[in-house]
Every structure is written in structure tokens, then in C-alpha cells.
């Protein structure tokens, strides 16, 4: 029974990582850059939802929608202002810029919302399910998180394989130059990718804060890093990989805490990453691309 409880907790935590990791992996796959500000977009999403519910007194669903809208716009603005001018620059320059944007968002939040932690009211009002005489309790947030994860996964897969924009994304990720020659607007495709990634970040932020109801300007950093690890673990650039990596990471983290050591859980998570990368450098589902010299 314990095992089952830990497994469900792990899948729930992993689902949040997976949704965040999707943002990392899509942006990396298409723009070939690591958007380290992604974790902080999560935090912005959390704050927007918090404000909508606590200050504007609107229902939770309005908070989620507003958070998605604001974060989508934020993602596009960040891309246009910070990353687009660096399209031809070295990847190191882009990486440093991304870290800069991350610090900018954190400090802006610190100025606006102040540093004291806010307690987030869960947007999910579904009661917990009790099974086996209350031995196994699954909270409403857990169910919603897992469901949201599955829905997002299905929608995203359909989007990339069926729609014109999705096909354009895949084309850009294969070969930017060739895609442009085929008449694909590369800049627009990248903007859309950022928009989708940031919108997902908002959902992840709301779910993260609903499950662990504390909100600070640094709320997004650690989950952001873990989700990045998840994306690499699953194979960065691969959408199913991000999903698999996220859930695996969540389960490993909870199991490590439960059965090995609560203090070493993070170390174990990162050690697993190192081992996987030693055996499969491209990640679990990553494509092995041989570089032409």
C-alpha cells in the first residue's frame, strides 16, 4: 500500500516536471537554445493566478486562463526582445542571456510581490479519493495534475503531427535553413513555440502551486532545474521523451526519499541523470544525430 502511495505521489510530482520539461524540450528542439528563464515563467504564472483569485476575487478557472494568457504573451515578448536579436550569435551568448532573463524575472517579482511567501489557494476543489479504508488517499490535485498531463501530451502530439504549424515546427527543428527555403516563416514558428511553451509553463505553475501551496519569487527555480534534468533524461528535443523523463524523475525522487534518504534525494536524482547520460548520451528517447564534419 505504501508502495502505491509513493508511486502515485511520484507520478503526480513527475507530471508537473513533465509539463515544465515540455517547454524546455520544445524550445530546444526548435530554436536550439536552452531557455533557462522557463522556470521563472512558471513563477509568473503562479503569481498571476494568485492575484486573480485573492485580489480580484475571481474563480480559480479564470485565474488559470489569465495566467496562461499572460504567460503566453510574456513568452513571445521575451523571445522578441531578448532572444531574436541573438539569432546569429553563439549559443553561449544566448545561454547567458537566458540566465539574465531568469534573474530579471525573479527580481521583478521580488519588487512587485515582495519576498514574503504567499500561500496559494488550490484551484482544484475536487475532494480526495479514499481507497482501501482510507489507507490510500489520492488528493484532487494529484488527479487533476495527472489528467492535465495526459491531455497536454495527447494534444501536443496531435498538434505537431497533424497541423500545418506543427509540421512547420518539425521542419524547423530538422533543418532551419532548408525549412526557410521551403517557404516556412522560421521566426514565426519560433515565436509560436515560445508561446506554447510559456502557456504550458503557466499551467505547470498553477498545478505546482496547488500541490505545494507556497509562492515566492524563487518558486520556479528548483522545479525548473529538475524539469531541465527531466528533459535531458528523456532526450532533449523529444516530446514523449520529456514526458517520460519527467515522470521517471518524479518517481525516482519520491522513492529515493522514501526508501533511501530524504537528504540525499536530490543527489540521487542527479546521479541517475549522470548514469543515463553515460550509457545513452542522447537521453532515453533522444535521437542520435551524427554530426557531419
Amino acid at each position, binding site marked *: 500500500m*505504501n508502495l502505491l*502511495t*509513493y508511486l502515485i*505521489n511520484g507520478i503526480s*510530482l513527475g507530471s508537473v516536471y513533465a509539463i515544465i520539461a515540455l517547454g524546455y524540450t520544445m524550445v530546444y528542439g526548435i530554436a536550439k537554445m536552452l531557455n533557462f528563464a522557463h522556470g521563472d515563467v512558471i513563477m509568473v504564472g503562479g503569481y498571476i493566478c*494568485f492575484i486573480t483569485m*485573492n485580489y480580484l476575487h475571481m474563480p480559480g478557472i479564470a485565474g488559470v486562463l489569465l495566467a496562461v494568457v499572460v504567460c503566453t504573451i510574456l513568452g513571445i515578448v521575451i523571445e522578441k526582445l531578448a532572444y531574436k536579436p541573438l539569432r546569429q550569435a553563439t549559443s553561449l551568448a544566448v545561454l547567458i542571456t537566458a540566465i539574465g532573463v531568469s534573474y530579471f524575472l525573479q527580481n521583478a517579482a*521580488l519588487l512587485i510581490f*515582495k*519576498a*514574503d*511567501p*504567499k*500561500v*496559494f*489557494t488550490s484551484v482544484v476543489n475536487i475532494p*480526495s479519493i*479514499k481507497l482501501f479504508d*482510507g489507507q490510500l*488517499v489520492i*488528493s484532487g*490535485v494529484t488527479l487533476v495534475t495527472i489528467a492535465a498531463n495526459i491531455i497536454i501530451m495527447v494534444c501536443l502530439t496531435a498538434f505537431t503531427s497533424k497541423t500545418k504549424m506543427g509540421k512547420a515546427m518539425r521542419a524547423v527543428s530538422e533543418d532551419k535553413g532548408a525549412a526557410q527555403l521551403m517557404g516556412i516563416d522560421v521566426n514565426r514558428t519560433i515565436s509560436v513555440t515560445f508561446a506554447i511553451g510559456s502557456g504550458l509553463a503557466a499551467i505547470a505553475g498553477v498545478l505546482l502551486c496547488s500541490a*505545494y*501551496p*507556497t509562492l*515566492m519569487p524563487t518558486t520556479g527555480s*528548483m*522545479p525548473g532545474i529538475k524539469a531541465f534534468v527531466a528533459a535531458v533524461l528523456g532526450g532533449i528535443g523529444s516530446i514523449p521523451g520529456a514526458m517520460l523523463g519527467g515522470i521517471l524523475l518524479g518517481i525516482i*525522487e*519520491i522513492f529515493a*526519499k*522514501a526508501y533511501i534518504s*530524504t*537528504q540525499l*534525494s*536530490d543527489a540521487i536524482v542527479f546521479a541517475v541523470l549522470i548514469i543515463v547520460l553515460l550509457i545513452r548520451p542522447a537521453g532515453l528517447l533522444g535521437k542520435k544525430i551524427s554530426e557531419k564534419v
Partner: protein
Amino acid sequence: MKKMKKMMALAMAGCMAFALAACGGSSSGGSDKQTEKATEAAAAEEGGAAGGTFKIGHIGPLTGAASLYGLATDHGAAIAVEEINALGGDIQFELNSQDDVHDAETSVNAYNNLKDWGMQMLVGTTTTTPCIAVAAETNGDRMFEITPSASSPTVTEGKDNVFQMCFTDPNQGTASAKYIYEQKLGEKIAVIYNVADAYSTGIYQKFMTEAETLGLNVVSESSFTDDNATDFSTQVNEAKNAGADLIFLPMYYQPASLILDQANKMGYTPKFFGVDGMDGILDMEGFNKELAEGVMLLTPFVATAEDDLTKNFVTKYEEKYGETPIQFAADAYDCVYALYAAIQKSGVTADMSSDEICEKLIATFTAGDFTVDGLTGTGMTWAANGEVAKDPKGMVIENGVYQPLD
């Protein structure tokens, strides 16, 4: 030609060096003048009487995750300073508050800023980890320091100039175990603590030692670190599986609020017993106070107490800052009054240097007949190692406010 160039270069270098020196000279001259002026002004105000205007520094986290504590100590000290100055006596205080974001390095920088300002005594720092770093500095500089709330024994260990207004962590751990045992609050006890935090670990260790002596049944011990302080499902689940009916939480309020929430989501309702770091949980923005219903904690101060001193303090605090003071505010308030009492008793004056003041105040604080009555205790005395002696009170949260337990 080459020689000319060399000569020119030398001359230029000379000029620049001179300019720099002049620059340095004039600026230091300026600041000298300023301090002269300041002392003159102080002397004028003093009017030849004993006492004068003392410069008190305060350091605490005014921003950041622990800002609730820093702001509380800052406000508490400010009220005490205001009251003392309003008395119009010979002893006047000037308070300068600096932010350390609960970070050791920033705290030492803040301390150096205060020294430049001319601080003579330090009320601080508010939190333990920065305080350990700052206490080492004050000890080297011979600056008198009294901390309202840094409760680890490491803060005062081997430093004769550092005193505490709050209980030490070990005392809190020991007192908590005793209290749980005497009041028979729990049959099976679980402990969750922050292994990355000196405060939390300190209380935990003493609690365990005392629990063993008393024969308390501790069925589950688990820990977390600052980096994984969001998901407590595993730790709470462990306690639940072990059948614990009381969870002891030696930690600050922010992780505690998450533990309360996650236990609630699991449908697990043990008793919760906290320490003084739990104080403040009710003031978190958006916190569902029902979760904290029935949470017990040991704290020397309750805002709902009926004595005149507390009432006066709480009214002033609420008027000025629009919120109910927590224990940290009361500790800082008492710190300033303890300094006031010690200055009166030892007869130090504001024109003395900080190390002279330090030696005299140490002698006064450790003298057996020096006692202070304050918000957080009556007849408080200090041992030579800087620890305070006073009795803790048990509190329980009922209908969103603290109520005395007994």
C-alpha cells in the same frame, strides 16, 4: 626623444598619483569633519549629563523568505526606541536598521556598514545562520551584541560579548520534550526537521536526547533540506504509517505550513507541536487558518495576554504597523529595554568608544543582580555564556489566535 617621453610619462604618473592622494585626503577630511560635527551635536544635546545619544544598530532579514522575522524585530526595536526617547531622559537612542536577507555574507556587510555609521551596540542579528558570522566579527571588534532571536548556542559560544533574548535551541528542544511528556500530549511521536538548518537541527538533537531520557516513544524521524522543502508527502506519509499521533516540527513557519497542508490533503490529522519559528504562520498571506487549528507551540510571548505591558505594546504595534506583533517583535523590544537598563546601571555614556561600552555592559549583564522584566518574561537573567534564563509558555492556536495552553 625617448627620454623626453619617459620624463613626460613619469611627470604624468606623478600628477595622477598626487591627484588621487588629494582626492583621498579631501574625502577623508570631509568625513572626519562630519563625524566631528556629529559628536559635537551629540555633546550639545547631552548637555553634560550622563548618558547621551547612543547609536544602536539592528540587522535582520527585511526582505527574503525570512523577512517576517526581520521586519518584526525591526518594528519591535523601533517602538522601544521611540518610547525611551519620548521619556526625554538623559539616555536617548538612535536606531539604524540594515537588511541581511537571512544571508551570512550580506549580514557581515551590513555590520560593516553600521560600524561606519558609528554604531555602539548591536541588536541582532535576527536569524541564526547570519548571526553566527556576525557574532565572530563583533567578538573581534569588541562590540556589544544582544540578539533578539538567534537561538543556536553556537551564536554565543566562546563569545563573552554576545547575549541572547530568546531561548537557545537546546533549551527549546528540551522544554518541548518535557512539555509533551508532562502534559501527555502524544503516545507516538514523529519528528520532521530541516537538516540543512542549524536552528532546526539544534532543537531536534536536544529534543531527541530529552525524549530518550523521559522515555517518549519517537516512532518516526525524517528530514528535509532547503532545496527539497516543497514536497513533504514522503515524510508525512512515513509519520502516518508509523501511527504517530503527534508530529513535532522544529522548523520555521513556511515549511511547516506546507506540512500542515499536505497532511490535511492526505486526510491525516495528528496533533502538531511547533517551536518559536512556527510563530508567524497565521500572518502568511493567503494561509488557510483552519489548517493551523489546534497547533501547539512553546513561545515566551502571546499577543493576547492581558497584562498592561503586553497590551500597551500590542496596541502601539497594531496602530503603527497594522498587524499583531509576533514573538520576535517582543524579543527585540525587550532587547532595547535590556540595553537601556544596563546603560543606566553601568553608567556608560554615549561619548565612550564601542569597546569601552562593550566591557562595561558585559560586566553589568553577567552581574548576578541584573534582572530585566519584559514582554517575554519577568526576572530575566543572563549567564556568563550569554544564555537567558526564563520560563517558556505553552500556546495553542484556537479560532485563528494564540491561546495559553494551561
